[in-house]
Structures are given as structure tokens and as C-alpha cells.
């Protein structure tokens, strides 16, 4: 295989990874790492490096739009970034010591968990009262919804904070955005409205990924020959995905289809991890 062909295959695969990641809301990293390792037999360290760079590109691109609309809660995001960056830094350092086969197994497990969570019915919370701690940190806010301004409060700050350390750790260890875990921390623990939690999670993903990318780049995980087609492909795919979402909301069977594909990929990663092929 020549470099041109290799680049073309990764570019095409990354485009679909970005598209699928955007449609499912799971992010491109979930597909890109299995594609590179299982299909193209790229070493997992390079795959993780390429994935984290594509995560920064897609989250920054999307966050730029959300922030301007005034939905993202910047204070909440900045506060929780303390947790996610500590986690990401720890995870990136741990990645050096954890054997690649273990990383593949953990990756599969997180992938299955996220696929299940993407299928659950989403319950929107709006808390009007908030704890003293949340009040002192000015975590509550408002967001525009169909011409109206909706205000909300935040609860269980400490619990959400610890969950965010874990989300950051997984992000740094596996090279993914771990947006699903961030949304759980904000939706289920801190009781933040869905619209705010998804956009604020996206806002935080870029900074979280940057905290581990600065470690990866010095360790030689970020190889220009692989990152170039991955980041361009994923970004273009995510752009296409965001256009589709505007036109049609993903129906039930489509979500099941995506979840099934992702579960199959997850089992492949776990199997190859146990077999020592990764």
C-alpha cells in the first residue's frame, strides 16, 4: 500500500466516523480508534493521538456556534474543567503504563456503556432551587428556548465534579472526548437542562482534550501522516452530520441501528484486547 492510498482510505473512513459520531452524539473518536487499529492495523498509540486531535477540532467547531447562541454555560464549564483537566492529565500519564490490550478492553467497555446511554429516554430537568454552594459559584443560568428565556439551577455540585474527574480520566486514557460521561454528570447528577448540558459538555471537551494532547504530542503519539487525514475527514463528516440533524431528527430505529453497530465494534475491541492482538 502506498501513502496516497493509505491516506485516502483513512480520509474516507474518518469522514464516516465524523458523520456517525455527529449523528449519534458520541463523537468521532469512537469509530476512528477501532477503524485505525482493527482495520488498518495502526498501532493504538498513534490511533489515540489522532483521535484526540480530531476531538479538539470537532468540539471547537461546534462550540463556536453554541457559545454565540448563548446556550452554553461558560461559568459552569470553566468550573468543571478543573475536574476534567486534572482527570485528562492523569489519564494521559497513565496511558504510558497501561498495556495496549488493557486499553482496548476498557475502550470496548466504555463504548458499550455509551451506546446504551444513547438509547435511554432523555428526561429533561429544570431545577429552580439550587444549593448554597452552587449559588456561591454562580452556576445557575438562563438559556433561550423558542423566544423565551428559561432560568435553571444546579444541584449536587460535588458529585458532578467527581464524575467529571472520571470523564477526564477516560478521555486522557483512551483519546476520546467522553462527551457521554460528561452529559451523565450534568444531566443525571447535577440536574441541568438537556440543551445546556450537551452544549456545555461540548464546550469543555476541547479544553479537556488539549490537556492530554500536550502530553501525547511530546510522547510521539501525534504523527502528522495519520493525524492529517483523520482530522480533515472527521471534521468534514461532523459538518455534514450537523446539516442532516437540522433537517430530520434521528428516528427510533436509526438510533437502534447505530447502537448495534457500536456494540459490535466494542466487542471486536474487547475480543482483540483479550487475544492480545492490539
Amino acid at each position, binding site marked *: 500500500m502506498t501513502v496516497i492510498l493509505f491516506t485516502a482510505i483513512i480520509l474516507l473512513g474518518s469522514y464516516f466516523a465524523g458523520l456517525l459520531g455527529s449523528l449519534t452524539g458520541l463523537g468521532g473518536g469512537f469509530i476512528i480508534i477501532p477503524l485505525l487499529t482493527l482495520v488498518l492495523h495502526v498501532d493504538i498509540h498513534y490511533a489515540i493521538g489522532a483521535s484526540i486531535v480530531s476531538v479538539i477540532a470537532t468540539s471547537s467547531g461546534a462550540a463556536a456556534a453554541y457559545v454565540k447562541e*448563548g446556550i452554553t454555560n461558560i461559568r459552569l464549564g470553566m468550573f468543571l474543567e478543573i475536574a476534567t483537566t486534572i482527570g485528562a492529565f492523569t489519564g494521559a500519564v497513565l496511558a504510558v503504563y497501561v498495556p495496549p490490550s488493557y486499553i482496548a478492553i476498557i475502550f470496548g467497555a466504555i463504548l458499550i456503556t455509551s451506546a446504551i446511554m444513547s438509547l435511554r429516554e432523555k428526561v429533561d430537568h429544570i431545577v429552580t432551587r439550587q444549593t448554597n454552594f452552587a449559588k456561591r459559584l454562580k452556576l445557575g443560568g438562563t438559556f433561550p428556548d423558542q423566544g423565551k428565556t428559561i432560568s435553571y439551577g444546579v444541584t449536587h455540585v460535588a458529585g458532578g465534579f467527581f464524575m467529571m474527574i472520571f470523564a477526564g480520566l477516560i478521555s486522557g486514557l483512551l483519546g476520546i472526548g467522553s462527551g457521554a460521561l460528561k452529559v451523565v454528570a450534568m444531566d443525571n447528577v447535577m440536574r441541568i437542562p438537556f440543551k445546556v448540558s450537551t452544549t456545555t459538555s461540548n464546550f469543555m471537551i476541547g479544553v479537556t482534550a488539549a490537556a492530554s494532547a500536550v502530553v501525547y504530542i511530546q510522547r510521539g503519539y501525534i504523527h502528522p501522516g495519520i493525524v*492529517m487525514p483523520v482530522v480533515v475527514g472527521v471534521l468534514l463528516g461532523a459538518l455534514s452530520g450537523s446539516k442532516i440533524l437540522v433537517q430530520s431528527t434521528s428516528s427510533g430505529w436509526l438510533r437502534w441501528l447505530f447502537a448495534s453497530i457500536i456494540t459490535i465494534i466494542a466487542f471486536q475491541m474487547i475480543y482483540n484486547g483479550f487475544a492480545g492482538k492490539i
Partner: protein
Amino acid sequence: MALQEKSKGFKDADMQSVIGWILRGGVIVSMTVVVIGGVLFLWHHGHSTPDFGTFNKIPYFISSPEGIFAGVIHGRGQAIIQLGIIILIATPILRVIFAVIAFALEKDRLYALISLIVLFIILASMLTGRIG
């Protein structure tokens, strides 16, 4: 914007538009640089055989800032791609630096401090990156 409280609205809205601008600009600039480097890289090395099956770090000439700088000057594709990647990684970090300044301007000391803590964690990550 009507959705903000009047007392703090103006500056928070300002901050939102600048952050949006930083993120969008960073992505556009970095992707342009990556694509330019990619075209040069494929032009020169397109017909060689890729070898990423075993982890062997990255080519020596792009493993230091000086090396990347020299490579960019000499128009080497991989060095230019790496520069683009560094600009992309710097984008969210720049957004945190801006948040420190913006919260300080809003006289929100608590959040200027919180943003500063995030910045220090990233710096610590950067400085200890080679260890281990």
C-alpha cells in the same frame, strides 16, 4: 442579547462572541495549515510505503519546536502539518487564557481564579509531558 441580565449582560455577551470567534478562527487557520502541509507531504512522499504497525514515535526532525520551525521554513510537509496540529491544540488553551482576562475585566475574581487554575493544570500537563 435579551436573554442576559442587564447588570452583567453586556460583558458576558461580549465574552461569548469573542470565545466563538477564537474557536472558529483557530479551527479554520489550523485546518488550512494542515491541508497545505498534507498536499506537500503527499506530493513528496505519496508513493512510499506507510509503516504505522509498530509504535516508533515520530520522525526526529519534527520532535522539537526548533525542528518543526526549521522544517516549516524548508517547506517540509510533515513539519507544516505538525504546526497546524499545534495551532489546533493551542485553540482551546487560548480560549482559557482569554477567559482569565475576560473574567478579570468583568471583575469576577472568583472565575478569573478558576480559569487561572485550569490554565495551570494544562501548563503542568505540558511541562511534565516528557516524564515517564
